[in-house]
């Protein structure tokens, strides 16, 4: 079994490796960036010959792992506070922090015609439940609550709120039709420059604090050229196109 697996993995590695001297970089990636990062890593491997080992998880969990000795060299967080904290604690390389994507909030329903393009549906309140991610742990949840407060609807809608543990679970609530509408990351319902289905209101960015997602090089990646190379690649044009195609801003 192991030998067969090893051979399969080698075959995959050979396909993705160029002629450049291949180095490896271990990357911790916030779960909401899973799909775009897989695509970016594939392009990165093709272009540079370096291999990116991706590990996905919730930002808070990744933080606990990094501070407890996880061997990650680059960290793509779902927010901008966690990388700053790591930098302060000396676990991240000072000055290596940069914003790789800006999240966009969307009010979405799996059914067409439920959400209008101005978000008036919130004021009418003709729905049983509204899904948001846990505002304490998920930046998108915090942004959603800020929007409700700005619209003066926080108290009126409080009894209708259904809280997902994270933004992916919140998406499942709405996509499965169990909840009529909810605040999600645009990247979850957006592909190739348009909505994948249902109806949506793209929440204006000025209604909440910017959802900046920062990346930082970790202490273990300080002297690793592959870590620097991937950090640079993330700021390049190819990565930018991929990031935008998933509904993130830059």
């Amino acid at each position, binding site marked *: 079994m192991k030998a067969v697996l090893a051979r399969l993995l080698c075959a995959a590695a050979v396909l993705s490796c160029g002629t450049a001297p291949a180095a490896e970089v271990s990357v911790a990636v916030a779960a909401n960036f899973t*799909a775009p990062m897989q695509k970016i890593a594939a392009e990165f491997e093709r272009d540079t010959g370096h291999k990116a*080992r991706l*590990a*996905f998880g919730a930002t808070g*969990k990744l933080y606990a*792992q990094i501070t407890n*000795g996880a*061997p990650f060299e680059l960290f793509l967080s779902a927010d901008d506070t966690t990388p700053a904290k790591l930098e302060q604690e000396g676990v991240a390389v000072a000055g290596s922090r940069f914003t790789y994507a800006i999240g966009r909030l969307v009010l979405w329903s799996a059914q067409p015609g439920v959400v209008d393009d101005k978000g008036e549906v919130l004021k009418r309140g003709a729905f049983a439940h509204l899904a948001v991610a846990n505002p304490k742990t998920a930046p998108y949840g915090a942004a959603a609550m800020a929007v409700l407060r700005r619209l003066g609807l926080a108290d009126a809608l409080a009894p209708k709120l259904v809280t997902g543990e994270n933004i992916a679970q919140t998406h499942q609530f709405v996509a499965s039709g169990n909840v009529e509408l909810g605040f999600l990351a645009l990247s979850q319902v957006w592909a190739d420059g348009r909505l994948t289905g249902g109806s949506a209101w793209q929440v204006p960015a000025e209604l909440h604090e910017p959802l900046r997602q920062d990346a930082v090089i970790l202490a273990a990646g300080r002297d690793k050229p592959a870590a620097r190379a991937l950090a640079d690649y993330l700021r390049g044009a190819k990565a930018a196109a991929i990031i935008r195609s998933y509904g993130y801003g830059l």
Partner: protein
Amino acid sequence: MTSVVDLAAIGLTLELAAVTTTILLVLGTPVAWWLARTRSAFKGAVGAVVALPLVLPPTVIGFYLLVTMGPHGPIGQFTQALGIGLLPFSFAGLVVGSVFYSLPFVVQPLQQAFEAIGERPLEVAVTLRAGALDTFFSVVLPLARPGFVTAAVLGFAHTVGEFGVVLMIGGNIPDRTRVVSVQIYNHVEALEYAEAHWLSAGMVVFSFLVLLLLNRRKRGSVR
């Protein structure tokens, strides 16, 4: 590409479950034997510690393992002093976590099997001048065989289904710590529901077959 990654996760999961089950059978047998025989005042406390993983959320187990095996924790400092480095985010770390997580699923069936044997066969063995080890290998082990099968199957299956602990102390690293349940989590987070369904359905079928097999065996041994 996806299927190669999925295959790697399946292979790693089976390897982890096999190693964990083997270790648990070796470690769990004396513990279960002691629990089944002892009149010690510590029996209740030890039994409770063995059963802890049944009631603790996996995140709690994973969190404490991460902290104690990390660079500042007691186990972490011990393993560093031994020169084997840190256990989290390695296959060895997953094995340690799984051994603890699946402990009750191996110890409890063994304990029940040992208790079911009763005093009588042991007394007979002693009157026939069998030594303690001889008694254990010639009398206890054959009589407790169904208990060992149940323990092995449950320990294996429970380790295959592990998620919270391995995500916390494994770190979701491809080819090293990314087991099937974690790979399902990745697919779901990436909204790759079709891939998630394939792996999840595989888990459901596997779990059902394991339990079906166990029930069959149990009915068989009653008859």
